[in-house]
C-alpha cells in the first residue's frame, strides 16, 4: 500500500489555478522527486499535504496518508500527524527557524508537545539528534540561536527538526537551494545517511539532485503533472515535451559544448586589488586580498567561488562602487581610480553592470521606456526625445523585446523579461565591459538559457567583454572563455575554461567541480568533497586560508601563504599544485 496518495488535487486562489488535478503516490521508504520551474505548484502541493495551505487557497481533491483521508481529520488529529508521521524541511532555514528561540528549545518542544519525551529525557534526545545531523559540540548548539549558526548548520537543524519525531515521510522543499555548492553536497549526503526507511518527497528545481537521490520523479508544469516514472527511465526517454525542455535546459558541467577561445587585446586589468570593510570594534574585514585580473575584448571571464569569496566586492571596486584599499585598475590603457562619481562620464559609461534580482534593480515607479532611456538622458544630452525613443526601441529589439513593452512597469514583467530590460539598459550606452553579478541565478532553466544565449549573441556582434560572476559552475562551464576562482577573498586559480574543468590544479577548484550534482542518473552521486564550511573572514586561518578544509594540507600550508605560479598556462596559488 502506498504511504501517501494524492488524487485529483487542485489548489485555486480565486480564478487562478496553481495546482490542477494532481495525482501521485509515494510508497513506504521510497524516494520521489517533485520537479518543475518556479510557479509550477511544487511547494503549494507540499503545503497542502500538511494542511498548511495559505489563507485564501481553495483546496479540493483527496489526500490520503496511510489510508486515512486528511480532509476528514480534525485539527487535533492533523496536528498529531504533523512531525510524527510527516516531517518537513523548508527551503531557507534562516527564515524557517525561529530567530528568537534557542535551537534546543525549538527541537525539544516537538518532543514535548507530541508526548514523545519530556524533561531531561527530551534534552538527551535533542542532543542525540543534533549529533546525528553532524553538529559538533551539541551542548553549545543546543543553547545557540539560529543566527549564531552558519547556513549549513542551520539546514542541519532544520533536518533534525523534521526527523526528530521519526516520521514515516519526509518532505524536503528545496532543502539546499540557499546553500553553497560544497555545503549542498554535505547536506545531500546527510539526507541519504539519516533517512533510513523514511520515505522522501524531494521538491527541487535542480535535476542534478533528482538524478542522484530519487528513485522516481514527477514533473510539474504550471500545476499539472506532465510526466512521471522511474528517474533513470525518464532521463533516458522523457515522455513529455516539457521534461525534454527541462533536461535540455539543465546545464551540465561535463558538457563539451563550450565557447571557443578568443584572442582579443586586453581591455581591463586589475593589479593586486585589496578591498576591506570596517567592522564593529575597528576590526577590518578583508573581502578581497591582493587579486589580479585581466579581461580581453570579446571575452567572458567568469569569477566563481562560494559566498564570502569576494567576487562581488572585487567587481564593485573595479566599477568604483566601493573604495579599493590598494591596487589599481587599468582600463583601455589609462588608470581608473576613485569612486565612480569622480571618474569621467566617458569612463563611467563604458563599464556597465547588471544584477541578480532584475525586478528589484528596476525602479518600480518608472516605465520600461524611461528605465532604458535614462542612461541616455545622463550621457547623451544632445539627443532629441525622438532620437532617444529610437535608441530605446533599438536596444529593446537587441534583447528580443518589441515596442509593446515600452509602457510597461517592472511589476508587469516576468523575471526573464525584467532581466532583458536590465540588459537593454546596460547596453544602450554601448559599453565595452559588462559586469553580470549572478545575473541568471534567479531565473528558471529555459529562461536562463535564453538570457545566456542573448549575452553570447551580443558579444559576438559587438565584441563586448563580460565579467560573469556566478556560483553555478555548470552555467560558467557553458558560457565563459576563462575562469577565475576565488576563496575567502584570495586568488585561487585562473585558467582557460576547458583546462580548468578538465585539469583543475587547485584542490579547492577540484572540490567545487566535484560538488556540482550532474543531471544524469547513470553518473553515481559523489560524496561531498569538502567537509566544514568557509571560516569567518574576520578570523582567517594562518598560512593558506584553505588549509583547514584542504585534503592536501601539510605543514607548509599552515605556515605560509602560497604565491601564484604558472603551470602550463594555468595560474594557481597552491603549495601542492603541479
Amino acid at each position, binding site marked *: 500500500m502506498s504511504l501517501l496518495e494524492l488524487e485529483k488535487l487542485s489548489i485555486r486562489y480565486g480564478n487562478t489555478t496553481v495546482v490542477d488535478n494532481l495525482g501521485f503516490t509515494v510508497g513506504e521508504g521510497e524516494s520521489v522527486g517533485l520537479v518543475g520551474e518556479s510557479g509550477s505548484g511544487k511547494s503549494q502541493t507540499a*503545503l497542502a499535504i*500538511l494542511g*498548511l495551505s495559505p489563507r485564501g487557497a481553495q483546496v479540493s481533491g483527496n489526500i490520503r496518508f496511510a489510508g486515512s483521508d486528511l480532509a476528514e481529520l480534525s*485539527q*487535533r488529529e*492533523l*496536528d*498529531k*500527524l*504533523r*512531525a*510524527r508521521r510527516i516531517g*518537513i524541511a*523548508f527551503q*531557507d532555514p534562516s*527564515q*524557517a*527557524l*525561529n*530567530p*528568537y*528561540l534557542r535551537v534546543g*528549545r525549538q527541537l525539544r*518542544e*516537538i518532543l514535548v*508537545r*507530541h508526548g514523545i519525551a519530556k524533561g531531561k529525557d527530551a534534552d538527551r534526545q535533542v542532543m542525540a539528534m543534533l549529533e546525528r545531523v553532524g553538529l559538533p559540540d551539541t551542548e553549545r548548539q543546543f543553547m545557540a*540561536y539560529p*543566527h*549564531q549558526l552558519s547556513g549549513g548548520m542551520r539546514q542541519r537543524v*532544520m533536518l533534525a*527538526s523534521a526527523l526528530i519525531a521519526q516520521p514515516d515521510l519526509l518532505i524536503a522543499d528545496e532543502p539546499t537551494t540557499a546553500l553553497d555548492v560544497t555545503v549542498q553536497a554535505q547536506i545531500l549526503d546527510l539526507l541519504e545517511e539519516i533517512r533510513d526507511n523514511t520515505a522522501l518527497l524531494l521538491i527541487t528545481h535542480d535535476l542534478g539532485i533528482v538524478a542522484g537521490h530519487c528513485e522516481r520523479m514527477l514533473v510539474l508544469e504550471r500545476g499539472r503533472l506532465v510526466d512521471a516514472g522511474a528517474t533513470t527511465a525518464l532521463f533516458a526517454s522523457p515522455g513529455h515535451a516539457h521534461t525534454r525542455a527541462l533536461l535540455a535546459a539543465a546545464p551540465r558541467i561535463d558538457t563539451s559544448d563550450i565557447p571557443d577561445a578568443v584572442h582579443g587585446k586586453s581591455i581591463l586589468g586589475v593589479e593586486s586589488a585589496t578591498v576591506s570593510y570596517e567592522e*564593529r570594534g575597528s576590526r577590518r574585514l578583508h573581502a578581497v586580498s591582493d587579486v589580479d585580473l585581466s579581461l580581453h575584448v570579446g571575452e567572458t571571464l567568469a569569477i566563481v567561488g562560494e559566498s564570502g569569496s569576494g567576487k562581488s566586492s572585487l567587481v564593485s571596486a573595479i566599477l568604483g562602487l566601493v573604495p579599493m584599499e590598494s591596487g589599481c585598475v587599468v582600463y583601455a590603457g589609462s588608470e581608473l581610480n576613485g569612486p565612480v562619481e569622480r571618474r569621467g562620464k566617458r569612463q563611467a559609461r563604458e563599464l556597465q553592470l547588471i544584477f541578480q534580482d532584475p525586478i528589484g534593480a528596476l525602479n518600480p515607479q518608472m516605465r520600461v521606456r524611461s528605465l532604458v532611456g535614462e542612461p541616455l538622458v545622463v550621457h547623451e544630452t544632445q539627443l532629441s526625445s525622438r532620437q532617444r525613443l529610437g535608441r530605446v526601441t533599438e536596444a529593446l529589439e537587441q534583447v528580443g523585446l518589441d515596442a509593446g513593452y515600452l509602457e510597461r512597469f517592472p511589476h508587469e514583467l516576468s523575471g526573464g523579461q525584467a532581466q532583458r530590460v536590465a540588459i537593454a539598459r546596460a547596453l544602450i550606452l554601448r559599453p565595452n565591459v559588462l559586469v553580470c553579478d549572478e545575473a541568471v541565478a534567479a531565473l528558471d532553466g529555459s529562461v536562463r538559457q535564453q538570457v545566456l544565449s542573448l549575452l553570447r549573441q551580443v558579444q559576438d556582434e559587438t565584441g563586448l567583454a563580460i565579467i560573469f560572476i556566478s556560483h553555478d559552475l555548470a552555467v560558467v562551464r557553458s558560457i565563459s572563455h576563462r575562469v577565475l576562482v576565488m576563496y575567502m577573498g584570495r586568488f585561487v586559480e585562473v585558467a582557460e575554461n576547458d583546462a580548468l574543468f578538465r585539469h583543475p590544479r587547485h584542490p579547492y577548484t577540484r572540490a567545487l567541480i566535484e560538488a556540482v550534482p550532474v543531471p544524469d542518473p547513470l553518473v553515481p552521486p559523489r560524496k561531498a568533497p569538502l567537509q566544514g564550511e568557509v571560516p569567518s573572514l574576520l578570523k582567517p586561518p594562518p598560512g593558506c586560508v584553505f588549509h583547514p578544509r584542504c585534503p592536501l594540507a601539510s605543514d607548509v600550508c599552515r605556515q605560509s601563504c602560497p604565491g601564484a605560479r604558472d603551470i602550463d598556462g594555468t595560474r594557481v596559488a597552491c603549495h601542492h599544485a603541479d
Partner: protein
Amino acid sequence: MLRYTLLRLLGAIPTLLLVIVLAFLMVHAAPGGPFDAERALPADVEANIARAYHLDEPLPQQFLRYLSGLLQGDLGPSFRYRDYTVNELIGAAFPLSLKLGAMAMALALVLGVSAGTAAALRQNSTLDRVVMAFAMTGISIPVFVVAPILVLFLAVKLQWLPAGWSSTTSASRLVLPVITLALPQIAYIARLTRASMIDVLSRDFIRTARAQGLGTMTVVRLHALKPAMLPVLSYMGPAIAAILTGSVVVEEIFGIPGLGQFFVRAAGNRDYTLVLGIVVFYATLIVLLNLVVDILYGVIDPRVRQR
C-alpha cells in the same frame, strides 16, 4: 551591555539639560510671579521676599543656582508650600501617581495584548472588527471627554462606582481613574499587537512551527508572542509619557491628590521650583524608562544583543 547602558546614560545628560533650560525659561516667561496676591504688598516687603528667594538676581545666575542645587539632588524649597521642599512634596505625592500609572499600564498591556492577539488570530471576523472599532474609538476620544461620560454612567446613573476620590476610602475609588487613564493605551496597544501579530504569523518560522503539529496555542505562546511584542515594547516609552501626562488631567478631574494635581496647581500658582522640580523629575523618569525599554529589547531579540 554595561558599556551600552553607561553610554546611553551619558547621552541622556544633554537631553535633560535642554528640558531644564526650556522649562526654566518658560516658567519665568509666564506673566505674574509666585508671590502675587489679590492685594499688592508694600514694595519693601516684596523686595525682601524676592531677596530671600533670590528672585532679584539676574536670570542666568538664578539658573546656575538652581542647577547647582539639582546636581546635589536638591530641587529647592517650594515657593507656595512654605515649610516644604520640592523633594518632600514629590516624595509625598508621587507614590499615589505611581500606583495609578502602574495599574493603568498593567491593565493596558493585559487587555491590549490579549484583544490584539485574538483579533489577529481571527482576522476579518466579527470579533476582529469589534476590537478594531473599539480601538479606533479609544484613540479618538480624549481623556477629558471619556472621564465625565464614565462618571455619568457608572457612578451617577448606575451608582456602581464612586465618582470622586474623597467620597470613599475603599479601593473602588481607583477603578474609574485607572480605566480612564488606560483606555487610550488599551486601544493603541491592541492595534499595535494586532498588526505585528498578523505580520509575525505570516513568517516562515511560524509555518515551520505549525508543520510540527504544535497547535495554535503553543505556536502563539512559544513562537509568535515574543517577536510580536517588539513593536509594543518600543511603544512603551511613549506610552509611559502619555500616562504621566494623562495622569495630570485625570487626577484633576477625579480630585486625586497625586503629583499631577500638584503640577497643575503649581503652574497656576507660579510655584517656580515645584513646576520645575516636577518637570525635571518626570523627564528623568521618562529617559530612564526608555533606557529600560531598550535594554529589554535586547533581552527579547537575541540578534540585537550581539550587536
